[in-house]
C-alpha cells in the first residue's frame, strides 16, 4: 500500500524502483526523489513501475515533470511497466505516446541509445 522507493545503478542508467500506491498523497515524495536524482547528476533515468499497485493522475504528472526536466538537461527518461491495467492507463491518457515504455529494465536500458553508446 505505502509508497516504496529504491535506487540502483545499471551502467550509465539510474533505475528507480517504485512500489505501492503513487497517488495525490504520495506523489510529492516521488517528485522529491526524482529531483534529488536529477540534481545529483543522474541523466539517464529508468523508473520501474513493476511493483506499483495504484497510479493516478498526480503520479503521472510527476513522471511527465521528470521527463521534461531530463529532456531539457539532454538526458533520457524511460518507464518499465508490463501490467495490463497500468498500460491501459497510459493508453487512455495518450501518455504511451509520450513515454518510452518497456516491459523490463533490461529492455529499457538496452533501448536507450545514449545508454547503449556510453
Amino acid at each position, binding site marked *: 500500500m505505502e509508497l516504496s522507493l529504491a535506487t540502483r545503478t545499471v551502467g550509465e542508467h539510474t533505475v528507480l524502483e517504485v512500489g505501492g*500506491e503513487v*497517488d*495525490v*498523497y504520495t506523489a510529492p515524495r516521488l517528485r522529491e526523489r526524482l529531483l534529488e536524482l536529477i540534481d545529483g547528476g543522474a541523466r539517464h533515468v529508468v523508473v520501474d513501475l513493476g511493483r506499483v499497485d*495504484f497510479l*493516478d*493522475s*498526480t503520479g*503521472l*504528472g510527476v513522471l*511527465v*515533470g521528470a*521527463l*521534461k526536466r531530463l*529532456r*531539457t538537461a539532454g538526458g533520457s527518461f524511460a518507464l518499465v511497466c508490463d501490467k495490463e*491495467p497500468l498500460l491501459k*492507463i497510459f493508453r*487512455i*491518457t*495518450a*501518455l504511451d*505516446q*509520450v513515454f518510452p515504455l518497456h516491459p523490463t529494465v533490461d529492455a529499457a536500458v538496452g533501448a536507450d541509445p545514449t545508454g547503449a553508446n556510453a
Partner: protein
Amino acid sequence: MATVRLSFSPAPVHVRTARLVGVAVARRAGVREDLLDEVRLAIGEACTRAVALHRQYGLADPVLVEMSDGGSYAVRVVDRAPIEAGIGLTALPPDELANESLTDEALTTGVGFALLAGFVEDLQVRPVDEGIGTEVRMVWPVGR
C-alpha cells in the same frame, strides 16, 4: 435504495479513504469484481480534483462523496469551488502533454479528466443544484 455519504476535509490523505470506501460499497452493492479497479481509479480522480480545487480556492469546506445503489451503483463527488473552475475540462492531445509551456497542474488536471472520461462510461460533470460547486456523477452497473 441504500445511501452512504462520506465527507472529508480537503486533504490528500482522505482521497485514500474515499477510494477505500467507494470500492467497499461498490463491492457490497454488487459491482462486478473486474470493474472495481476502474471504480477505485475514477473515485480517486474525482476526489483528487475536488481536493485540488478546494486548496486552490482556499476552501476549508468538506468534499462530499455520495454512493447509492438503486439498480445501479451511482457515485457523486461534490466540490464547493466556483463553477468556472470546475466545468469545461478537456483531455489534452499527446503533443501538448509533454509541452514545456504546460504547467504541472494543468497537465495533471488534463490527465485526470482523461482517466475519468476514459474509464467511466456513464459520466456527468455539472453544476450542483444548490449553491456553488460542481458534481462529478458516475454510474456503474451492478450484478452479473
